């Protein structure tokens, strides 16, 4: 594609301006504020249309910036260009709701369709993004040495990795890593909250279990006691004392009984030997009666004693029975409470998983990272080698053979090789870095825009070049026989071209206005 004529009918500050461009080198000269970048934007907007910002961003978008100063409803431009040996005319209206854009082949009068992508075919399928990062070349933006080297390194890494000069893949991956970390932390926080609830439940549960165990022990103790009482395996001291008392009483009655019996025996002997008197007979009778009384007393006492002892034992057992009954109830109640809480605890533990949604988000971020790395690697291996060769060739020509090769190691460190030595990029001068940058963009353009040769737009690209470098660059461009459009606010490009005897076409914006 070669640009022939730009008609800025009503665009930004321009009204009815027509710029003619020629094959080979064109120099668009203009002082600051004379509208160079407007022309630049105009070309891009003609080729790719103008997209409007949305929402809050709309106030400061390209559309608003170049909205004509007067008569804004007529916001229009026209461009003539050649492609594949045919001439075309492209008309676009940028104003909202304005008429249709139009693309006409002037050679055969055919009207082409923008909607169907005919223009895109003429552009060799390059996208706006690729255009901006290749065809259209500005200056490196960074000003300090290190930052400059960094910018260039990113640039190169990404050209190599992704074809897309403006994209910092590492930064994208870093931000995704950060995102994943955030998501994981969120999940972790939730998990911790769950764990806290869990441990609260657990301590409640263990308290209840302890309580339950104690109740059970109490019950068991009481039951053992009852058993002991019931079967009387052991005799209590009180009972021993009582038994002793009983024994003593019985012995007392026993002695009394014996005394009476002896007395009775003596009386009986006396009776036997005929010593019979009223006294002995009476004594005998009394003795028999006393004996009977004592024996009766002995038996009665023993019976009474036994009854008295059995009674409190039974009372105790009855009390123990009540206790056991009460403790059984209590234990059962506690056991059920305990089981219920244990079930609840188990169910809660089972429910303690990271919600599927969160897991999916984390997996999605991981997938995004893997995919970016994969695509990036694929593109790198496809383009990398060719690109390096191409940069090296261009740089060699620009530096007249001083630097022959550009290399980049796995850590993305760029270095340049001369015949005898190697210089890391950071150590080179700004001018050299600019040259590497220029070589890089030209090389990428050759690779990416291989279908259709695009004009090279250079926007103040050579501002930092010294005379020698400028000469080399202009010579290189002239040799390429491409259409080149140089935007500049200086006279040095013209002077150098004059000196080198390279023909060029000049458009002076300051004169025309």
């Amino acid at each position, binding site marked *: 594609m070669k640009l022939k004529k730009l008609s800025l009918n009503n665009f930004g500050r321009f009204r009815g301006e027509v710029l003619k461009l020629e094959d080979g080198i064109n120099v668009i000269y203009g002082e600051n504020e004379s509208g160079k970048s407007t022309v630049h934007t105009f070309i891009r907007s003609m080729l790719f249309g103008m997209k409007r910002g949305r929402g809050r961003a709309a106030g400061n978008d390209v559309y608003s910036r170049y909205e004509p100063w007067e008569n804004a409803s007529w916001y229009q431009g026209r461009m003539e260009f050649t492609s594949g040996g045919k001439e075309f005319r492209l008309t676009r209206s940028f104003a909202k709701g304005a008429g249709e854009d139009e693309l006409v082949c002037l050679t055969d009068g055919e009207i082409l369709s923008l909607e169907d992508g005919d223009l895109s075919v003429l552009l060799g399928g*390059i996208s*706006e993004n690729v255009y901006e990062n290749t065809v259209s070349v500005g200056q490196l933006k960074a000003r300090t040495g290190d930052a400059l080297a960094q*910018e260039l390194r990113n640039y190169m890494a990404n050209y190599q990795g992704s074809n897309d000069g403006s994209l910092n893949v590492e930064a994208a991956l870093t931000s995704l890593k950060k995102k994943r970390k955030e998501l994981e932390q969120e999940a972790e926080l939730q998990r911790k*909250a769950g764990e806290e*609830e869990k441990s609260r439940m657990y301590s409640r549960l263990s308290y209840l279990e302890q309580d339950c165990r104690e109740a059970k022990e109490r019950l068991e103790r009481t039951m053992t006691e009852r058993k002991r009482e019931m079967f009387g395996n052991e005799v209590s001291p009180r009972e021993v004392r009582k038994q002793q008392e009983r024994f003593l009483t019985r012995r007392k009655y026993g002695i009394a009984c014996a005394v009476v019996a002896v007395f009775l025996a003596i009386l009986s002997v006396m009776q036997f030997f005929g010593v019979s008197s009223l006294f002995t007979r009476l004594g005998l009778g009394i003795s028999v009666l006393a004996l009977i009384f004592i024996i009766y007393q002995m038996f009665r006492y023993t019976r009474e004693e036994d009854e008295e002892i059995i009674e409190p034992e039974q009372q105790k057992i009855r009390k123990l029975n009540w206790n056991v009954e009460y403790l059984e109830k209590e234990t059962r109640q506690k056991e059920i*409470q305990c089981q*219920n809480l244990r079930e609840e605890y188990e169910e809660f533990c089972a429910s303690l998983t990271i919600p599927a*949604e969160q897991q999916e988000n984390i997996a999605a971020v991981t997938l995004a990272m893997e995919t970016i790395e994969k695509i990036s690697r694929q593109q790198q291996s496809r383009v990398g080698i060719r690109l390096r060769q191409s940069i090296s060739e261009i740089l060699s020509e620009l530096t007249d053979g001083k630097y022959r090769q550009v290399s980049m190691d796995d850590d993305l460190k760029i270095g340049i090789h001369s015949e005898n030595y190697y210089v890391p990029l950071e150590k080179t001068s700004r001018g050299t870095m600019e040259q590497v940058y220029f070589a890089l963009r030209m090389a990428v353009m050759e690779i990416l825009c291989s279908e259709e040769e695009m004009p090279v737009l250079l926007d103040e690209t050579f501002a930092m070049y010294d005379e020698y470098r400028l000469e080399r660059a202009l010579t290189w461009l002239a040799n390429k026989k491409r259409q080149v459009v140089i935007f500049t606010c200086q006279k040095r490009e013209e002077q150098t071209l004059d000196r080198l005897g390279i023909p060029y076409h000049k458009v002076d914006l300051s004169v025309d206005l």
Partner: protein
Amino acid sequence: MRFFHVADIHLGMEPDLGFAWSKRRQEEIWDSFRRLIDAARREKPELLLIAGDLFHRQPLLKELKEVNALFASIPDTQVVLMAGNHDYLKKGSYYLSFSWAENVTGLFGETCERVDFPKFSLAVYGCSYYSREVTDNLYGEVRPSGAMQHHVLLAHGGDDRHSPWKKEELAAAGFDYIACGHIHKPEILIPDRMAYAGALEPTTMTQTGEHGYIDGIIDSRGTRVSFVPFAVCEYVDLILQVDEDTTQFSLEQQLAGEMERRGEKNIYRVTLEGLRCEALEFSVERLMQTGNVVQVTDRTRPAYRIEQLKREYAGSLIGAYAEYFDGAEGELEQKALYYGLEALLNARQE
């Protein structure tokens, strides 16, 4: 003969454990049960069928006393209940040793038994759970028998691990009505023949929609049942549409408005959908504090025009990335697409 059929009351349960309304809901479940008894006292149905899971866990003695006192307050209604998978008859369960009021019948057998109510010429069949899971169909063998005219089956379960059954087979046994429990969403399985009453009050966020009990009549003309909404609270799925102008504040306003309109007693499960402003991310946490919000799912996407991005970035990594996920339907891939695009677009060097 008129009957009320309820199930899955889950007394004692604390729904949405950890949320602010959990205790309140526990009370509301008890309150709704009391209101149900009030309704029975007022309307005097002959029969109150409770198809399992009256309690969320093993009932305590005091809880049974409370329930029994409530039953005793409706002497004109015969209460028939069973133990479900939550309050199953474990060893030592108070269900078995409790002495119930005269009008209460517990179907506490391990296999189906029949209880006759000659007054209404009605036989009720059923059994109870003895473990948390029952993988055999408890109701496969039971058929109407005896001299009664009407036959009602009380059945709990119906899923894989809780007495799995085929509703057609069960219905073919010839009962006038099969009162089912266990599934918390009310559902008429076979019109006027077999139904899940559903939980009296919903117990988790998946149980959206109305909850209540079934009011039915069995007479010479057959069985007629109808669902009576009774719960004080509903779980509501709320979908909020966002667009590029939506902000966190406007979203909170919108949510608060919706909740006010649909009832502030309800509990909401919120899903955000639509295309949000590229630079914005919504705070789920703040939304959850707006009211009874149990869950917020953010399905919004940054408002990237994928087709436009593909065109604009054709031949570059961004274009290739968008292309890579083109046509991928899965939620995971869609999310990855947007996460990746966001990172890549932000990583452009201006």
